[in-house]
């Protein structure tokens, strides 16, 4: 793919075709009607939904429960969706087309919650708080992917790096009795794997998907081997101290938002810090411009005196660093011990979040939160005794990814030179 076609595609992003306008309009109308017919009209008028707004076990930043008349709230949400859909037909939203559709999808999810919890109480604060926690490894995985792929290296080894890091973090954390050293150990192990991936794909020009698969198989085998040989017989080396909840003074007192974002785990803060650093570094600094140019058009970058090989090694090593933090989250931030295969495909979902977020840190965070939210809904709804099997709720993120990838919300833009080893001529 040459540079000129890239530019053409960039222009296309902001031009919304008539067909897409009609399509999103119809989708918004259908969402509205769906809320109205399936949710609103199946409820008796007198029922209320109670949302508890503070996660359990937190005493600062409390907020009163939110009680909604279920049917009325649903009718209002449905009307907004229908109005949004009608406006899409009349005027269109230009570059906000996706945002409008996104808002309607959000309303659909919210309506679903009102409907499911009608006549009961649902801890919305707790649900969002656990959604953020569940989003941490996915989002960090996506950041890891962005760092590698912006420099032109496909990294499907994120899963393997996270798994290795989670095991090493538990091991070093337990032996040293220090979560920080555990984190360091985990991160170093993931960076070592990243280095192997880098050497294989940059120096030896191995197909990057295959070298990623090597790392994944190796990690799965190695962690299971060490776990069975040592960790399972010896609880003392699989019992790392965990990072405790950190309360940010002042911010933690904000109602609703405070308990969810500012009175939580170290890894959530790390995720937010990496988000800001990455977003600024990628798009506002010379470093970021160089990294991206190597991923888009290495030959041009080389001509301008950028060291392509070194930049790519830097990209993949930083990718390993972030994946390592994501992996350490499992043992040091969430569970407190290592279990075989505990990353459970979160690295792969992180990759999906990266594509979903269009190789953009903020987009990746949004996608990660969405996946985390879908996970959290699943577990909460089974507590509410929902008729929908939890397995189907668990499928939702994967289905959404496939639909998005199929181009319903516009095609993502992968770095052009990704997957192609660079050969100096």
């Amino acid at each position, binding site marked *: *793919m*040459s540079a000129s076609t890239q530019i053409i595609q960039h222009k296309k992003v902001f031009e919304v075709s008539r067909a897409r306008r009609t399509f999103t309009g119809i989708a918004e109308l259908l969402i509205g009607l769906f809320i109205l017919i399936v949710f609103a009209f199946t409820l008796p008028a007198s029922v209320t939904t109670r949302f508890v707004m503070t996660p359990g076990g937190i005493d600062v930043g409390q907020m009163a429960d939110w009680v909604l008349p279920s049917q009325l709230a649903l009718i209002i949400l449905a009307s907004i969706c229908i109005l949004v859909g009608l406006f899409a037909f009349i005027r269109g939203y230009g570059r906000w087309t996706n945002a409008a559709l996104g808002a309607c999808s959000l309303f659909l999810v919210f309506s679903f919650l009102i409907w499911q919890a009608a006549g009961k109480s649902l801890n919305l604060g707790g649900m969002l708080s656990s959604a953020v926690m569940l989003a941490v490894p996915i989002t960090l995985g996506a950041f890891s992917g962005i760092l590698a792929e912006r420099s032109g290296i*496909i990294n*499907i080894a994120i899963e393997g790096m996270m798994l290795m890091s989670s095991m090493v973090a538990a091991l070093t954390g337990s032996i040293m009795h220090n979560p920080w050293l555990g984190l360091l150990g985990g991160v170093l192990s993931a960076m070592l794997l990243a280095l192997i991936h880098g050497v*294989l794909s940059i120096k*030896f*020009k*191995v*197909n990057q*998907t*295959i*070298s990623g*698969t*090597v*790392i*994944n*198989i*190796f990690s*799965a*085998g*190695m962690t*299971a*081997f*060490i776990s*069975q*040989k*040592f960790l399972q017989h010896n609880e003392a080396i699989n019992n790392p101290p965990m990072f405790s909840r950190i309360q940010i003074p002042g911010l933690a007192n904000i109602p609703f938002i405070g308990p969810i974002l500012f009175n939580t785990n170290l890894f959530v803060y790390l995720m937010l810090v990496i988000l800001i650093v990455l977003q600024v570094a990628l798009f506002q600094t010379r470093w970021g411009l160089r990294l991206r140019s190597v991923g888009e058009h290495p030959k041009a970058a080389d001509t301008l005196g950028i060291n392509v090989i070194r930049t790519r090694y830097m990209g993949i090593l930083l990718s390993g660093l972030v994946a390592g933090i994501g992996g350490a989250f499992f043992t040091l931030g969430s569970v407190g011990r290592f279990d075989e295969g505990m990353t459970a*495909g979160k690295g*792969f979902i992180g*990759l*999906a979040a990266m*594509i979903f977020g269009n190789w953009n840190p903020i987009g990746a965070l949004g996608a990660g939160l969405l996946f985390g939210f879908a996970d959290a809904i699943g577990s909460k709804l089974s507590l509410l005794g929902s008729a929908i*099997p939890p*397995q*189907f709720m*668990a*499928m939702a993120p*994967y*289905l959404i*990814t*496939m639909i998005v*990838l*199929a*181009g319903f919300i516009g*095609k*993502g*833009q*992968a*770095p052009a030179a*990704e*997957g*192609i*080893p660079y*050969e100096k001529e």
Partner: protein
Amino acid sequence: MGAALKTSQNTQTDFSQEVINALNHEPPTEGPHKKSFWSTISIPLLAIFTGLLVGAILIAVTSPEVYAAFGESIGKGFITAFRQIGTAYQALFTGSLGDPVRIFNALRMGDAKEIRMAINPFLESLVQATPYIFTGLAVALGFRSGLFNIGVEGQLFIGAACATYVGYAIKGLPPYIHMPLALLAGAAGGAFWGFIPGLLKAKTGGHEVINTIMLNWIAFRLTEWLLSGPMTREGSGGMPISPIIEKSAQIPQFFQSPIRFHLGFFIALATAWLIWWLLFKTTWGLNLRTVGTNPRAAKYAGLNTTNSIIVAMSLSGALAGLAGANQILAVNHSMALGLSSGYGYDSIALALIGNNHPVGVILSSLLFGTLRNGATRMMVVSGIPIDIVDVIQAIILMFVAAPAIIRAIYHIKQPKKEEETVFLSGWGGK
């Protein structure tokens, strides 16, 4: 891959040349006259040897006894290390191929039952290799057509679920109809699960790597729901396990239990032959391989790449489905969630080691089946976790994928012409 970069930047005149090359010449990977037999197999063999060597080092390094012995003296340490490795690999060998002494004695005594029991470890290795042959063919077929099917695991589960359903829900059929029908149902289920990412790739460009990974997770959840809901065994109390399939649906085993050697192994060999014939002896196969090695040339030659992507993914899925069906109908006889020990992921390594050729797939399946079977015995004898096989497989795959490392270690000269590699692109599917 370097070639791909160059072609993308060259002018159109080169494309016509490429088309002619692609159509007139067989890809250099085949044709024994172009490459000597030794140079084809030397890299995989050395990779396997090095993988086993790394495994041996891992066994020694993770053994507390070795450290204790090194504490006494260096010589003692080495002796203990070699003894540990020796015991472990001896168990690996006898567990997968049989104990030579026992086989010799059994042959001398002439007792048929004892002979069978003595060679059972070998037969069991064949049983273990059977699903690998199917899944390896699935991945290899994908690679040959330029597709990376990581979704074999999910396709295997869907195929197994379909075969299980036909196996227990339909009653009263004669075995010669019921068994093939259940096998076909498995193939159809897998084919459908492969068809979806194929269609998405062909029509929207959605990359099959992400789509098949997503479909894997959907397949796991779906089968979990099926097995604990609509397809659950009566009286299982919501445990995810299916009813036992009818006797008429079972793939027959040749000997009495505990020998599990069954007809499925030969079905797998026949399937491998069929895939070989399709790929290398039909026009369809040539077109498919052209799409795989050089999609742009294929497009210029007027080949229907859209169709071949969909057909290749479906066929690949069908093979994966057969693997699942085979395990249900021949070995397990009912479906539970622990059906696969990662066949889908292992088969990626396996197909690459076998050079994506059906014969290579059979050989590397035999290797993987043997390793896995022997590792079970090794775990019993020396307490070494079976997962060491994964580590060895990863090392082997690494060396096969990066032959330059092997050449550097063993000082082998590089062949004049680089092999043509399969064409795999970024997420955009360009």
